């Protein structure tokens, strides 16, 4: 379990004179749950877009699953999973159609798609809704389904951008059960959240402030380093320090 799935070194992105990401360096191991925290505007989205191969860095190095983020962006896209709160599934397609669509995008064979689709629907207990349109499902169900779809091609890593925003507290925890199961079978999880209790569920957490990673470690290490009782206090301490 010691393989690095993400490795970055001095990764930097400038937009004109504005430095959105300023020499960020970190690594994420196979099967690790890595929490990527920071205030609004700290540069998290820019970093995620680089790591997913959507925009090129200005300078620095990074590899995702062994693929270079300058040269191998197309290979990166095939080997990662991605979901966000804002967009995850097509609302006017059914549950089954969304699974098939994403399976196709990730180049799974029709046979694999059929098998996984059955397995995934069974695991989530969605048998009676497999032909329902996504827009008719409650948000919590959509998010659980979106996560399962984002990892149906067994990527090396899945990027989750605020996956539980606005989700009810019971479903939020069921969602984390799914994350633990995925990590348990070796998928690395890279997750952003504004719920500080969720920061505690991560193996390690990084805290981004004004484009830089100001602190990184296990939740326990960070709490003791900043003499805080909770990750919320750690966050306040670091983000306030920046102002």
């Amino acid at each position: 379990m010691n393989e690095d799935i993400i490795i970055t070194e001095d990764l930097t992105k400038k937009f004109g004179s504005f430095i959105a990401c300023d020499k960020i360096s970190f690594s994420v191991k196979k099967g690790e749950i890595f929490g990527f925290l920071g205030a609004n505007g700290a540069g998290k989205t820019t970093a995620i877009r680089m790591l997913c191969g959507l925009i090129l860095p200005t300078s620095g190095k990074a590899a995702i699953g062994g693929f270079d983020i300058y040269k191998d962006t197309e290979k990166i896209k095939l080997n990662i999973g991605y979901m966000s709160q804002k967009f995850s599934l097509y609302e006017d397609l059914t549950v089954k159609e969304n699974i098939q669509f994403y399976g196709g995008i990730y180049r799974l064979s029709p046979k694999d798609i059929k098998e996984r689709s059955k397995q995934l629907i069974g695991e989530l207990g969605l048998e009676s809704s497999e032909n329902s349109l996504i827009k008719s499902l409650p948000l919590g169900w959509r998010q659980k389904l979106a996560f399962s779809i984002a990892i149906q091609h067994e990527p090396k890593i899945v990027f989750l951008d605020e996956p539980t925003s606005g989700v009810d507290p019971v479903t939020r925890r069921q969602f984390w059960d799914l994350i633990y199961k995925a990590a348990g079978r070796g998928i690395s999880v890279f997750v952003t959240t504004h719920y500080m209790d969720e920061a505690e569920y991560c193996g390690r957490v990084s805290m981004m402030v004004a484009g830089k990673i100001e602190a990184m470690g296990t939740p326990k290490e960070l709490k003791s380093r900043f003499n805080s009782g909770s990750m919320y206090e750690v966050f306040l301490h670091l983000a306030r320090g920046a102002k």
Partner: protein
Amino acid sequence: MNSIEIKNIYKSYKDAKALENISFEVKKGEIFGLIGPDGAGKTTLFRILTTLLLKDSGSASVEGFDVEKDYKAIRNIIGYMPGRFSLYQDLTVEENLKFFATIFDTSIEDNYELIKDIYVQIEPFRKRKAGQLSGGMKQKLALCCALIHQPKVLFLDEPTTGVDPVSRHEFWEMLKKLKDKGITILVSTPYMDEASLCDRIALIQSGRIMHIDTLDNIVSAFPGNLYAVKSGNMIALNFDLKDFSGISSSYIFGEYIHISLKKDNDENMIMEFLKMKGHSDIEISKLQPGIEDCFMELMNNPENR
């Protein structure tokens, strides 16, 4: 004296019941929180109260004005900040504010006192287009625009969703100051921790209100015994606890797992069970429930399904 009165409101969209028999009052000068996840019906209720949507049945009034008959009067005395950012992205900060002031036949100068504390934070960017502001700044501008005509009642639909914990904290500080100026505030949020900042709260789920009270009363009404549990292997602990029959609920909560014990079960039985499962460094301690424990308990109550 009540600022908002809602009686037996129902609203459906085709077959989907968005609101079922909603009734409550908000007192003048109160901060009242509607707490619940997406899809609970919060926005539908806001749109009915701000006269933008017609209810199917029931009655509602704001400052004594009926939401249907007196809609024009209501529009003049309320400020509304919708969930989705709805200012003009191509106008600057200053232009947006001026626009809203003009609509209400007033000026920025006449109302500057009320918005001053908030506006000074975005004033350095007054020539910037609203679309180019960061999330926290957009939120402050939207609040200024909702306040520019000195409303009696503020409707804030999820003003802190997607906003980081520091900006959320600052936003609530601003709301407290507005309350001190006598403005009634109805605010919705999916963040349970914000309940402690409201005078009273309604917990809402699937179009129904599960409970209305002060935070203290809701917390003290929690049934059963709650414990916080921890061990050396939290991932295994989470799955193991779900297999223990003496527990009525088990949820991860930050670095602990909160469990509710069924009658005739005690800490020792849990301890024995976890030792048998091979856990080490086990900690079990009795716990005061928080709002999120209460919300989940209510969600599991068959009456609320």
